[in-house]
């Protein structure tokens, strides 16, 4: 299948891309890794008149710790997360996530920023970044602003990004002492979207879960936190009862739709089970476990 015709512009820099977005208005669309956009264009679900290619802008491909956070350039390829020892050692939730996004070939092109800016609740980074309490840095004609992840997603494929703004950096707070995280995803096959997936990031003090943040994938029309499940864990010791309460809370507060991947009831139950398992793994990791 061949996409509808369009004009192609290769941006020289992010600022050049912002100027092009400004100029082309509603007709302009950014092309980063293209692993969601190009399939949509082949099906003619997307027919942008103008594509502004930013995929080659290597100044925005980096993973580094600075000023109390992990900074990821928005055009960093997913594969770079898997290959980063910093990520695999200190950001286990992110490392878990990176390994289950689409497939390895797609991860060689797909970008972290694209996964978030697309604002698809079926994508994996939204839940993970919600669990981390990440901040997103966007640049527009008036300069840069920092957007807390909790306020970023506003609807299905919709975010607070303006038409002429570009997501340029993702900031994940450095893990506090005693923290652990995990991402668990049920998918029918490699490359499919999640039937459900759960991102957990928590902080232990002794045996007590001081705080927990949980993000859910593909069980709502907007990427969501499981706040009731977080509440069920906060201040509690890990026990079968605590896990059961958190799992039930997540199952109740998610809002899945029935599709080829299963019924609403099934997806709620998968969410319940994955929440329990992800919390258990996050706690094990917080205690220094390597699993």
């Amino acid at each position, binding site marked *: *299948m*061949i*996409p*509808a*015709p*369009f*004009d*192609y512009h*290769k941006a020289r820099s992010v600022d050049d891309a912002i100027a092009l977005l400004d100029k082309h208005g509603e007709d302009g669309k950014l*092309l980063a890794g*293209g*692993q969601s956009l*190009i*399939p949509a*264009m*082949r099906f003619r679900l997307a027919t942008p008149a103008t*594509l502004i*290619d930013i*995929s*080659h802008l290597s100044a925005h491909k980096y993973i580094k710790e600075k000023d109390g956070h992990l900074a990821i350039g928005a055009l960093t390829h997913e*594969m770079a997360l898997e290959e980063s020892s910093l990520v695999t050692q200190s950001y286990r939730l992110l490392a878990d996530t990176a390994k289950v996004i*689409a*497939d*390895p*070939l*797609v991860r*060689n*092109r797909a970008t972290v920023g694209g996964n978030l800016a697309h604002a698809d609740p079926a994508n994996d980074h939204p839940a993970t970044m919600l669990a981390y309490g990440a901040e997103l840095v966007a640049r527009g004609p008036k300069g840069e602003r920092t957007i807390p992840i909790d306020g970023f997603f506003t609807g299905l494929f919709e975010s607070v990004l303006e038409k002429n703004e570009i997501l340029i950096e993702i900031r994940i707070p450095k893990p506090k002492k005693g923290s652990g995280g995990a991402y668990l995803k049920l998918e029918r096959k*490699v*490359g499919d979207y999640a039937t459900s997936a759960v991102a957990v990031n928590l902080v232990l003090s002794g045996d007590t879960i001081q705080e927990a943040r949980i993000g859910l994938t593909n069980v709502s029309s907007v990427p969501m936190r499981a706040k009731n499940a977080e509440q069920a864990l906060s201040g509690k010791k890990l026990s079968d009862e605590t896990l059961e309460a958190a799992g039930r809370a997540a199952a109740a507060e998610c809002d899945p739709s029935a599709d080829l991947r299963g019924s609403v009831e099934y997806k709620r139950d998968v969410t319940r089970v994955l929440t329990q398992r992800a919390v258990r793994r996050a706690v094990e990791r917080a205690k220094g476990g390597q699993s």
Partner: protein
Amino acid sequence: MSRHLVTLSVNGQPMKQEVEARTLLVHFIRENLGLTGTHIGCDTTSCGACTILLDGKPVKSCTLFAVQAEGASIETIEGVAQDGTLHPLQEGFWEKHGLQCGFCTPGMIMCAKAYLAKNPRPKDSEIRQAISGNLCRCTGYNKIVEAIQYAADKLQASEGKGG
């Protein structure tokens, strides 16, 4: 609808062609260059039959515009054999019966070639992960994993000999 001059290297040969912006890299390779070893299986970014190496990395050439390959070096299945001698991967697929219909094979080989460059002594489970974006509907994958291990052994042996 814009048209662009694209300059790139294909299997070591410099190329220059004009393309429409919407031309997918896989169509450019097959139709403009006549290199039909790169296959189109699904058209949905699922199957990996169109896998090529873009600056050494395996990517799905159906999910990239030809214009984006400007300045890049790409390798297709036609560039794998050298001077009429099969690459150890091609030999492995032959020896270990790593194919039945053969439709997925070019993509499998390109993916495996990049992976063995990254991890020359892989475990079977790592090979399975590495080729998880390439679908085969015939073999059940066991023979493909054996074929890739055959190539890994052979490449290691020739490395040992300083070759």
